[in-house]
């Protein structure tokens, strides 16, 4: 499909490419080549793709249905409420893309893939192709400087190897930290009186999560958390919430990977514990929670 010829009638290859494209199963390169082919205007392939796109659109209906937990509906309402009050709706200012109507919001952590390109506007694909072409020309024009940079890369390789050693060491440190963490969690899990409080990520960082393992006998709480890096001058603080008070349970300092771990001990029990929350606070922590909640879990 990399050729620029238009197809007068459906070919096996054309159908194959269109089917794989609709399913998002082409490699990125193949998908871009097919994009280019369509852009040049091949009505045969476009018609094939449209039909296969419809098939793929229908496939989702075959998955088994499952009722989501009821609290998700409330969470959605809260989130939409926030969106409405915080950001003006783009309803009148957005100009729909003439072709594909679903630009995908990509998270920075996910790898770009052949799958998503089905929904990327053609414009983006075209820009990528132009960028690629430009990069190739620049590369051909300037081999000499490329060779110079290869030399430089060799030196860099030595530095890289050293960095790699450091990274491995860090990984080992992380693993040993993780195993001591697991030992602490296991200690709580062995307690005859224990509770686990899962904390869900809230609006500032919905991907965050945390768990509080509570040993009711020993008045010990083991906390693990996965949080985004705290902004400069801010720290994460854990709170135990009772009907009458919000009690600080100390700071949580995530490592580079965003993983935080803490063991909290109190002389007496915190009862009745209604919820646990992690908030973002000014450096040093606060007497009472001030900043937004990053993770929250109610004690059921």
């Amino acid at each position, binding site marked *: 499909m990399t050729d620029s010829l238009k197809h007068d009638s459906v070919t096996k290859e054309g159908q*194959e490419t269109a*089917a*794989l494209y*609709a*399913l*998002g*199963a*082409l*490699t990125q390169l193949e998908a871009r080549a097919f994009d280019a082919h369509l852009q040049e205007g091949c009505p045969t392939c476009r018609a094939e793709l449209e*039909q296969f*796109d*419809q*098939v*793929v*659109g*229908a*496939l*989702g*209906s*075959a*998955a*088994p*249905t*499952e*009722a*989501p*937990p009821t609290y*998700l*509906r409330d*969470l*959605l*309402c809260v*989130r*939409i*409420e926030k*969106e*409405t009050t915080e950001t003006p*709706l783009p*309803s*009148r200012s*957005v100009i729909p*893309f003439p072709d594909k*109507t*679903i*630009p*995908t*919001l*990509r*998270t920075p*952590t*996910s790898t770009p*893939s*052949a*799958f*998503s390109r089905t*929904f990327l506007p053609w414009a983006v694909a075209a820009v990528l192709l132009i960028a690629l072409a430009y990069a190739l020309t620049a590369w051909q024009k300037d081999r000499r400087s490329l060779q110079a940079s290869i030399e430089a890369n060799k030196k860099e390789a030595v530095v890289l190897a050293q960095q790699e050693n450091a990274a491995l060491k860090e990984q080992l440190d992380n693993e040993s930290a993780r195993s001591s963490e697991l030992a602490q969690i296991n200690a709580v899990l062995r307690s005859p009186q224990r509770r686990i409080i*899962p904390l*869900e990520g809230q609006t500032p960082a*919905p*991907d965050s999560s945390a768990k509080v393992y509570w040993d009711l006998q020993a008045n010990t709480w083991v906390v693990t958390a996965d949080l985004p890096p705290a902004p400069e001058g801010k720290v994460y603080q854990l709170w135990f919430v009772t009907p009458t008070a919000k009690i600080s349970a100390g700071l949580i300092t995530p490592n580079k990977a965003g993983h935080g771990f803490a063991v909290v001990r109190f002389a007496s029990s915190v009862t009745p514990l209604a919820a646990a929350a992690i908030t973002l606070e000014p450096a040093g922590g606060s007497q009472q929670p001030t900043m937004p909640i990053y993770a929250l879990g109610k004690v059921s």
Partner: protein
Amino acid sequence: VADGDQSALTALYDSTSRLVFGLVLRVVTDRSTAEEVLLDVYTQVWRQASTYDAKRGAPLAWLMTIARTRGIDRLRSGKHEHQHKESLDSIGEITAGAPSPEEDTVTAERRSLVRSALETLSAEQREVIELAYYSGLSHSEIALRLGQPLGTVKTRTRLGMIKLRDMLRPMLEGQI
């Protein structure tokens, strides 16, 4: 929803969330991840409803496409890869073919049409299409996973998709 009407979104949620959650769960397999993705899906619908063009396809297909994309993006980010792989089969057994009382008849009809179309495929054709659909794998990744030559995977995909297209044609043309 296109007018940014909040009650329209909750109405849409009420009539479609079982479908969307089922699909997302099938893709990401981990329940808590699926819950996060579900919220993301409807938030995206809320933001993009104004750009949705009814001429370009059934709204349900649009919604399910967002759900699948979101699910696979999350799967690719790999955060929850190690979790609860085994839950997939049990979920399928418990809920397959158990329509919700609120589910409207059009949706139920659509589901049964798509399911019966899938059943007309050979097991091999269904396998490659489901792998591509639910796991977002590329053709070569599918070939690798199944231990089949790439050409075989491509042919199975093509034949399976053509068969699905032919089987679903009445439904797709009616834009159910």
